């Protein structure tokens, strides 16, 4: 009698064990683990998903992009408000880094460090990264900041309460409080232009084509080809904001 009980216990144990192991294998086959580059899924549907490419190797620091932005959009002229700007990085022979962006780069740059002290120097245009998991729209208390279905991060200015929480949440410093409108302002990727099939103002004026605008959903777009051909990186990838701004030749010093 006792032997039988033991036998049946053993049988149940084996059965359960096999069932669990089989289940795990089956589940793995159904949804195999894949490493992800983007920790978010591209939205489905046949509309575009806009992104940006910036080729640092091509940027000459003319600052046309920054000034075109202020001309095209209602950005205050004072040097405290920018939807996009250019930074000049100079790595010295002693390893120290000097970063400058006088008036956001409008009017170009002057190198203040003597040539013989310079290890290397380059320009980095900055603008809203139009993150797929944007911390700014996560924290907006009223949902005034939102992402459009085509992947552009915008603000409904008639709804923004001006609390500034999104300014704190943006890791890239891309937002500011508009001094007269008293609401937050940021890059719209010239939404009014791209919806008409035009390029954003900063892309339009770039003399070296260092800026590439395109649709990440379109495998033949300039942007997708640019990302394919270059080893691109994001800014601050550890924050998992999933930017849609891809930099070619992004150096370690850039933050």
């Amino acid at each position, binding site marked *: 009698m006792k032997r039988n009980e033991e036998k049946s216990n053993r049988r149940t144990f084996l059965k359960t064990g096999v069932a669990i192991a089989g289940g795990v294998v089956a589940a793995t086959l159904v949804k195999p683990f894949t490493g992800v580059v983007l920790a978010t899924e591209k939205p489905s549907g046949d509309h575009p998903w806009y992104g940006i490419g910036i080729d640092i190797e091509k940027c000459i620091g003319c600052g046309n992009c920054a000034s075109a932005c202020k001309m095209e959009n209602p950005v205050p002229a004072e040097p405290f408000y920018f939807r996009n700007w250019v930074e000049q990085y100079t790595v010295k022979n002693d390893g120290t880094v000097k970063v400058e962006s006088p008036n956001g780069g409008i009017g170009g740059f002057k190198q203040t460090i003597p040539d013989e002290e310079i290890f290397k120097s380059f320009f980095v245009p900055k603008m809203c990264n139009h993150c797929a998991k944007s911390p700014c729209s996560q*924290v907006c208390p*009223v949902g005034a900041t939102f992402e459009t279905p085509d992947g552009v991060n915008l603000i409904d200015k008639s*709804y923004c*309460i*001006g609390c500034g929480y999104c300014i*704190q949440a943006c890791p*890239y410093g891309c937002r500011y*409080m508009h001094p007269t409108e008293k609401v937050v302002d940021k890059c719209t990727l010239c939404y009014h232009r791209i919806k008409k099939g035009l390029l954003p103002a900063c892309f339009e004026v770039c003399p070296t084509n260092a800026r590439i605008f395109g649709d990440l959903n379109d495998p033949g777009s300039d942007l997708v080809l640019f990302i394919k051909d270059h080893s691109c990186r994001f800014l601050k990838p550890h924050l998992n904001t999933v930017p849609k701004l891809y930099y070619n030749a992004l150096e370690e010093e850039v933050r």
Partner: protein
Amino acid sequence: MEHHFQRLYEVLTQVQGYIYPNEVELYWSVLIVLYPYITGLVAGAFILASLERVFNVKVLKPTYHLALLTALAFLLIAVMPLVSHLGKPLRAFEIMMTPNPTSAMAIFGFIYLWYLMVVLLLEIWFDYRRDMILWLQTAKGFKRFLYQVLTLGSRDLSPKALRFDDKAGYIITIIGIPSAFLLHGYVGFIFGSIKANPWWSSVLMPVIFLFSAMVSGIALVMMVYMVVSKIRKITSDINALDTIAKFLFYILIMDFALEALDQVHRIYEAEESFDILHLLVNGKLFMSMFIFQIFLGTLVPLATLAVFQFYKPVEKIRRTIYFIISVLVLFGIFFMRWNVVIGGQLFSKSFYGFTAYKNQFIGAEGYLMAWFWFLVPFAILAFLLWLLPPWKKHEELEAQE
């Protein structure tokens, strides 16, 4: 506007290193320092009150109602610094009407209302219902009208009704303790959840905010109790003060330990942001952190209270020292909030430099406005003490007879 730009140009000359161009202006000013400060005072005062009610610390009886009314006075204006700081204050109510569920700030509105409506107002109402009905019979004029409104038509003084008051008050206090924890822990989360800012982004932030809230709330009630006693020309109950001081001592130790843990953790891990934070703490925050917050606001009170555990000077000296300690603690916790809020915006998120904070005295976000919102609760408290004097409650009068 010209004046505003002028000020920003001045700040621009004080920028050190490189900051993103949009970072010259520091958007969360002294009013946002005041907001977690005042919310913390509320939570702390309530927790002290609940000690008497739920944990039966009878010796705290003289401060029980005072603590509740203090919490209410501060809670009533707790969101005002926040609202008056908004670019569009008239749209503030949208936070309640169309909240974004992923926003910590949006959810705070509901926690605030829950705490005000369900916890504090209900508790005080049940606590004062009998007295308001009794006072109504003798009061005249405006005061009579107020009692009439506040009793909400209730006139039942039967033993059954009174038993219900007591029971309801007890249950609400039990709900109130986790609510108070939530209220202020949540304020910590508003800062602690900002991953872009390494000075804020810490899982310990809600806990640190909670303990510092308790410290400041206890100190506030201690101070208010002594001042009110002085005005009423009675001697404050030294046993109550000793007990409050003892709680202050324990919680101050925990608060200090938690903050130290947070800093030790940062220093040991020394992540990417460490260098800039190190410069921040030893530079722009040196005075407000090491001198105001840690030395004056924490170590001096802590050392004094530690000595009191072994050696107690005579009552008169003890009272004076308690008063000084409560003021020091209140001062220190204010600068703790300052170091979090202002400190977190002084360094650039590029980690390459600093901006400067240059506030005016007058103006929508000036120091005058901050003082105004800090002093209004005391006026409200004076009004509440006139309307609902704890020392005229029936149990107090019974005790005196």
